[in-house]
């Protein structure tokens, strides 16, 4: 390999590395430092030691509420979304007529998913006079207060995220198609039914992909912002006030960037701990090709 080509690779990766250092690594490190400061954006940060963390864990009721809501949201959204995505992937794995059309149609919400426009649309669909309530009333039911009732509001936001199941579904679909068909034939010959085949052959073989989706969707759910910000502004009674909203409000409304950084780091630690738990538990339920376990 000549000297010129030796450095060519560095040039190729340079844009990504520079971007990573500038827009990810530096803010990451800076936010850790800022979490120990009192910083109002407009003047220089003042070192306050662990004061922000002490306040966070000792007398911030909003943080307690926001953390609780965030955990409920994540532990509801992720299993629901993964289950739904897997179900649709299994259905779309059958050889149906116009299957490619269905696959595309089911993926569309994920293309639109993160946009503000969809959040606004969601707001209109579930509003008191919206489409969902019109349907309920036309079927003889009573309209539901989706956004004004604290118990319903979080569910509505959860539905929005679950509706955007496309990316997880596509990954599941790819995994399903990679399962060796001879295993299905062998199981059928032995008299296994569809459920037994799915539970004992399909599911174990796609556990690496389930694990991957679990990690990705968990991280994404912890970072949810657009939906609750646009649809409910975190209300009512902070029932949809996820931690990213609290971080945003503290940073850009209260000008308490130090405190916001402390919350962000707590959120990071929570995500990291849950990810480590998932990795640790994966030894017991994730099966890779060539795995010697029986």
């Amino acid at each position: 390999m000549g000297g010129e080509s030796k450095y060519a690779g560095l040039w190729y990766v340079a844009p990504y590395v520079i971007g990573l250092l500038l827009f990810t690594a530096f803010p990451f490190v800076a936010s850790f430092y800022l979490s120990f400061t009192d910083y109002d954006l407009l003047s220089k940060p003042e070192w306050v030691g662990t004061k922000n963390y002490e306040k966070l864990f000792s007398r911030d009721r909003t943080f307690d509420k926001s953390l609780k809501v965030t955990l409920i949201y994540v532990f509801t959204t992720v299993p629901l979304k993964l289950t739904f995505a897997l179900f649709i992937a299994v259905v779309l794995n059958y050889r149906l007529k116009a299957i490619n059309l269905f696959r595309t149609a089911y993926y569309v919400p994920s293309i639109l998913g993160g946009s503000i426009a969809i959040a606004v649309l969601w707001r209109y669909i579930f509003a008191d006079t919206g489409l969902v309530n019109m349907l309920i009333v036309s079927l003889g039911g009573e309209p539901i207060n989706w956004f004004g009732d604290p118990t319903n509001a979080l569910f509505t936001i959860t539905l929005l995220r679950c509706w955007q199941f496309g990316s997880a579904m596509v990954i599941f679909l790819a995994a399903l198609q990679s399962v060796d068909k001879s295993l299905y034939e062998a199981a059928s010959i032995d008299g296994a039914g569809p459920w037994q085949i799915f539970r004992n052959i399909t599911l174990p073989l796609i556990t690496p992909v389930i694990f991957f989706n679990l990690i990705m969707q968990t991280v994404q759910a912890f970072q949810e912002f657009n939906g609750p910000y646009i649809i409910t502004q975190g209300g009512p009674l902070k029932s949809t006030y996820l931690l990213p909203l609290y971080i945003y409000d503290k940073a850009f409304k209260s000008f308490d960037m130090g405190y916001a950084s402390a919350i962000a780091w707590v959120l990071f630690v929570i995500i990291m701990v849950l990810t480590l738990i998932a990795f640790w538990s994966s030894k017991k339920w994730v099966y890779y090709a060539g795995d010697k376990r029986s």
Partner: protein
Amino acid sequence: MKKTFIAALLAASALTSTAQAVELRMSWWGGDSRHLATQEGLKVCGEKHGHVIKPEFTGWGGHFEKVATQIAGKTEADIMQINWPWLPIFSADGNGFADLNTLSGQIDLTQWSADQIEAGSIQGKLNGLPVSTTGRLFVFNKTTWDKTGLALPSTWDELMAAGPVFKEKLGDAYYPFEGIGLDASLLITLYGTQKTGMPLIDPATNKIAWSEADMVDAINYYQTLVDNHVIPSWKDVAAAGNVALHENPKWASGEIGGTYQWDTTYFKISDPLAEGQELSYVGLLSQDGQKTAGIYRKASMVFSISANSANKEAAAQILNCLLNEAEGVAAMGSARGVPSSNTARAALLESGALKPEQVNAQKLVLDATGPAIHPFMEHPDVRSAMQDNLELFAYGEIDAETAASDIFYGIQEALDDIK
């Protein structure tokens, strides 16, 4: 001779114009009518002075955060529309924005009264020029009220009595008024201010002027309005999601019969109304034994120039054009209410660009009495202390006494934290 002529020409050009043709940015918030008028103003003023001005406009929601982020990153627009209570937040020492006194060569400051200049100044530095004076007023959908046969109210008692009449004559969906969130906070503040004669936060001492009993009384009165079908409950309004009044179909259709709004938002709240609906300002409702009308009046938005702008003089030319010069004033029209600038106000009155409703509303604001407003009343943490606890009260999670106590605690904590 030739050299002398060229030298004279150069000297003359240096003296007459210190602002070369440059590219500027201007940011503001508002509704559609304001966006259109301001873009037109920037176009004509840009052509007149030879500059290009890029517009950056949004709705009200999120604009504060946007400006805060830009100022922190020193990437703010050259000319900014700033909410008056933000001045001490962004410029505690007066150096957060350009001192417009130093640009008096480009801006005709004599068009504003000494009080108005004072309102835009911090520590003697003119940080922003008031575009207009604004105040919260009661405004009613006269068309809806006429259907009930009731005259528009002038007292709280009359408003209270209208609730059952609306329900009986127009149905459950119709309410004579509305008020949750910020509007609820300001209604409660108004009621208490009228009763006590004092602002909630005393601008002279930076302390809460009311007693907790005053706050409890005002909160309970608000609840009576809800109980009497005058104001839809917080929970019912929240059912529409996070929707501003002017985007609410119930406002457009006339189901909501009134609101408590800034007089400068006339077009914002009147534009969406269905054909044939008429708005009418009535000033401030009164109560027996009140000590003041309690007007919540302030300099409306101000126009400021960035302290970091590389083209302050050019920006000042454009600012002066928008606020004082005939072309700019005509293009801007009345989208920001009745102008504070004498020359602009006279020009718009003469041309008939100001609607009679706007002129009437402005008179109501200027004539009403009330204690001075503390700019920190609109500090995000103070607002949050009010609104979060009022919401808890409205949902029945806490009683009025607890709400008052927690509001006071939150406001005091915010005042202590504000540098």
